[in-house]
């Protein structure tokens, strides 16, 4: 699936698909699972968390990429964390100022994006070797990949765990007894397990070379 000669740098489409789907950070790389389990009891939380991750990964990838030739190798990880932390705290503060209810719901998990392996992983594995525009695309793509999984888990857990999603005006028939386990942490594992299985069924991983 190569799309050489695109408008930006020839690799944008490929990078986007790799991050969002083929090399999905959660279902394929199994990164960032902690927050995928913690904040997905409601769909709305999943969406805001995904937005936060898209913003943080894109921006930190951009800055790391711009600085990639000037960051001293010995302190490159510390520098990456400083950059990531700056954007995460920025997002957290804005949430506290302008979207207070959501900030209450997400609690410490916004701040914990600093330690999310996806953000750091992309900075290390991609932004340090690639030009800025492509790095932004990669950040957005991985954020979207994370978002797809979170949204799917949030949808599944809220719908079957509480019997309705008020945000979408969706509700199951009254005869359905909400499965409270889905709202709890074990339910998140179950939902994630099903989802990873589904993803692998739709697009099977390449046979590992022996």
């Amino acid at each position, binding site marked *: 699936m190569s799309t050489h000669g695109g408008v930006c740098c020839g690799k944008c489409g490929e990078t986007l698909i790799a991050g969002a789907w083929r090399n999905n950070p959660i279902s394929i790389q199994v990164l960032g699972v902690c927050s995928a389990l913690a904040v997905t009891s409601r769909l709305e939380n999943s969406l805001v968390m995904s937005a936060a991750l898209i913003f943080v990964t894109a921006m930190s990838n951009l800055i790391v990429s711009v600085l990639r030739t000037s960051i*001293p190798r*010995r*302190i490159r990880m510390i520098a990456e964390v400083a*950059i990531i932390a700056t954007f995460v705290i920025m997002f957290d503060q*804005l949430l506290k*100022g302008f979207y207070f209810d959501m900030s209450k719901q997400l609690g410490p998990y916004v701040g914990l994006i600093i330690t999310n392996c996806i953000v750091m992983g992309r900075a290390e594995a991609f932004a340090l070797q690639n030009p800025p525009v492509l790095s932004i695309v990669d950040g957005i793509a991985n954020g979207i990949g994370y978002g797809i999984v979170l949204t799917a888990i949030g949808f599944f857990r809220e719908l079957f765990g509480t019997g309705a999603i008020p945000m979408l005006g969706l509700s199951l028939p009254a005869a359905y007894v909400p499965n409270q386990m889905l709202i*709890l942490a074990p339910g998140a594992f179950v939902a994630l397990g099903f989802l990873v299985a589904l993803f692998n069924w739709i697009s099977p991983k390449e046979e590992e070379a022996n």
Partner: protein
Amino acid sequence: MNDSTYTVFFAVVLGTVCAVILTAVGQFTQPFREANAEAEIKKNILSVLDIKVAEGTSPADLIKIYEKNVKIEKTGATEGGKSASKNSKRYLRMENGKIQTAAVHFSGPGLWGPVYGYLATDGSMKNIKGITFYKHEETPGLGGEIDADWFRDQFKGKSTRRSDGSFGITVCTGGKKASGNNEVDGITGATLTSEKVQAMLVKVMQTFDKSKTSSKEVK
């Protein structure tokens, strides 16, 4: 510039730039964050006093509505023998010069962490008029249901006294259905949270009952 000097130089510059950006963002959002935090407290008091506030009211408007409608009374409430200075206030909703609803703050241990809320009664603490929980760490979907409407609405109109005349309310657990005007249904799967909520409500009622005689001033 040799390698080490450059590393230190880079770290200092990066650290400074990050700090400056964060300070700027912090300064910019500070008034909004503070207004939100204050409005949140007032919103809870308004809600438990059953003073309607439209969805999406700005923090500034909310504070205005609060100041117009809520009077604060200092009582001599004590907690464990000590003056409960912080939690000794009653928040009053007046009507024709009489107390229509009075709210008090309560807190206590939940299953995972402290639970905070407000309890509203009529002026003489005979009947409960409302209850809110504004901060807790109970399990979402189980103990976390304490802040759901179905749980809180049950308290409205219940008596604050048991049949023996003592203050208290029973949150039924273990499959028992609430009956009588002094019982509410507990939460299935959250027996411990239900019991702890009952304990903190009994405590706050007793605290304010003792203080009723030494009510001081209405501001």
